[in-house]
């Protein structure tokens, strides 16, 4: 494009160039969003919904169905729920309770095709797994007796779950590959630690995604005396030694502290062979968290760290990054942003190696507080987004959903 434009300019001058560019300038891509819809009717003075799972995998797409999982404590105990909606339907069906009798937290979900889904969550210190769609009463499978913070991904015809396993003094990232013949027959094919070396400090909040026959696993790691983001890739239980992907920043003091803070990595596969890792990063200590990312390409490893938010994010705080990728190469990050003085959901699109301008999501920005987004693209490239909404900082919450479509004018 640039070469063609340069050639046109050289040959025919500015007027021809402007005429050449005119039709292109008038074709501007724009996101159009549906009206926000409630996901659950369970709202009230002492009801608080949570979307804070590792990797922010709280929404999934399968067949013609979108499914959302969350935790709330409507009956006084934190429990995990699931609500679904057909794309053509205006609203969600009544939710079903996924967890058992224990205190349940941090559910994650992945689509399996044919409107089936797999969920993993933490309950009473265990990591549990359950499939829904064919049989909503399918039994629960225990993956860990001492784990937390699960995250999940499809891996070919199987799924992979990662979590932080309490082993001795520290949490260590554990991985399991699971086959699902049907809802009642989940088979753990193999299970191992993501890093074969013994944990030197806490390993927390993992995320996982597949790129063809390979997996990328990323997590928070405190081995250097402060929190860094590390990643390993390869086949399940045959991963490379992990390497740090959040950049080293020069310290202001040689005496005090070990380094800046980062938290909560999320992953999204996009195109044929790329993965985006995004996380909240405090490298500029005066601004609180900013949203940073790095792109992994098969054969090349990770590229440099990039700041996702634009310069207008300034000294405002950003957190809760979530990413959605599509096989056609589309990639989008959403996060919570306070630049307008209240808490809004913002998005940025990655194209041609650069992040676009930040867009406050209509319906998920403005008065009140909108936070904790989770996003996914469906097969057609439509964006599905959920978030937590509340009128005031300590008030009760509502769970909202919206669909975004990229249009050209």
């Amino acid at each position, binding site marked *: 494009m640039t070469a063609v434009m340069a050639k046109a300019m050289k040959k025919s001058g500015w007027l021809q160039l402007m005429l050449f560019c005119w039709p292109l300038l008038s074709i501007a891509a724009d996101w159009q969003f549906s009206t926000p819809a409630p996901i659950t009717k369970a709202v009230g003075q002492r009801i*608080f919904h949570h979307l804070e799972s590792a990797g922010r995998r709280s929404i999934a797409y399968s067949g013609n169905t979108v499914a959302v999982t969350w935790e709330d404590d409507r009956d006084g105990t934190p429990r995990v729920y699931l609500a679904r909606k057909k794309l053509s339907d205006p609203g969600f069906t009544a939710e079903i309770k996924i967890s058992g009798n224990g205190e349940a*937290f941090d559910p994650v979900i992945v689509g399996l095709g044919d409107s089936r889904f797999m969920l993993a969550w933490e309950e009473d210190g265990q990591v549990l797994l359950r499939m829904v769609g064919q049989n909503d009463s399918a039994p629960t499978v225990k993956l860990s007796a001492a784990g937390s913070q699960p995250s999940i991904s499809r891996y070919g015809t199987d799924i992979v779950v990662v979590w932080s396993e309490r082993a001795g003094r520290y949490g260590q990232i554990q991985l399991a590959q699971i086959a699902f013949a049907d809802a009642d027959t989940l088979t753990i094919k193999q299970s191992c630690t993501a890093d074969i070396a013994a944990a030197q400090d806490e390993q927390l909040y993992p995320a996982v995604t597949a790129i063809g026959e390979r997996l990328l696993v990323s997590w928070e790691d405190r081995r250097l*005396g*402060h*929190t860094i983001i590390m990643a390993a890739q390869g086949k399940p239980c045959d991963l490379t030694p992990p390497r740090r992907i959040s950049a080293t920043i020069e310290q202001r003091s040689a005496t005090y502290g*070990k380094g800046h*803070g980062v938290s909560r990595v999320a992953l999204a596969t996009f195109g044929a062979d790329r993965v985006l890792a995004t996380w909240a990063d405090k490298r500029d200590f005066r601004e*609180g968290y900013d949203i940073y990312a790095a792109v992994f390409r098969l054969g090349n490893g990770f590229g440099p760290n990039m700041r996702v938010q634009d310069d207008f994010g300034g000294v405002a*705080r950003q957190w809760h990054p979530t990413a959605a990728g599509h096989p056609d190469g589309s990639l989008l990050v959403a996060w919570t942003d306070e630049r307008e003085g209240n808490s809004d959901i913002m998005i940025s699109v990655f194209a041609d190696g650069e992040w676009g301008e930040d867009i406050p999501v209509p319906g998920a920005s403005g008065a009140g507080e909108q936070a904790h987004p989770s996003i996914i693209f469906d097969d057609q490239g439509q964006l599905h987004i959920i978030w937590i909404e509340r009128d005031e900082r*300590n008030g009760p919450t509502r769970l909202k959903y919206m669909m975004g479509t990229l249009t050209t004018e």
Partner: protein
Amino acid sequence: MRFAIKRQLIFVLLIFVSLAAAAEPPAGYPFLAFDEAMQQAEQQGKPLFVYFGRYGCGYCDKTNAEAFSDATVKQRFIDHYILAYVDSESGRRLRLPTGERITERELGTRYDAFVTPVFSFINVNGDVLARLVGVQRVVDFLDADKQVQDKLGGKGS
């Protein structure tokens, strides 16, 4: 000679131990989890002093070494406040008096602890009485304590 080597080894060991413990709440202070501290504050009718820190935080480490090490600071803060420590990156779960469950990380954002350290003096209703951001010296802590105690009608001494 042997004694000198032994002393050097002990010195190196002490440095190692102090580095390993860096950016944790300062030793010798009865810091509690935020929700436990809120309960105790209500029972004892005392305000809270909340330390929002982070693992590996240099300014926390410096404040621990240069201000919390002071005996007067220690005595006044233990006498006047219920002490709470919040790791602003942690997923540790807390229960607020409103009934809301929240992680330490989210609590940090709730109290605007977007940098670390932040020190908040909070009454039992959750209202912030005073707030200190960044590295603190002994005099900063003692001044803040006096202001808070004056505000509460206490002696502040």
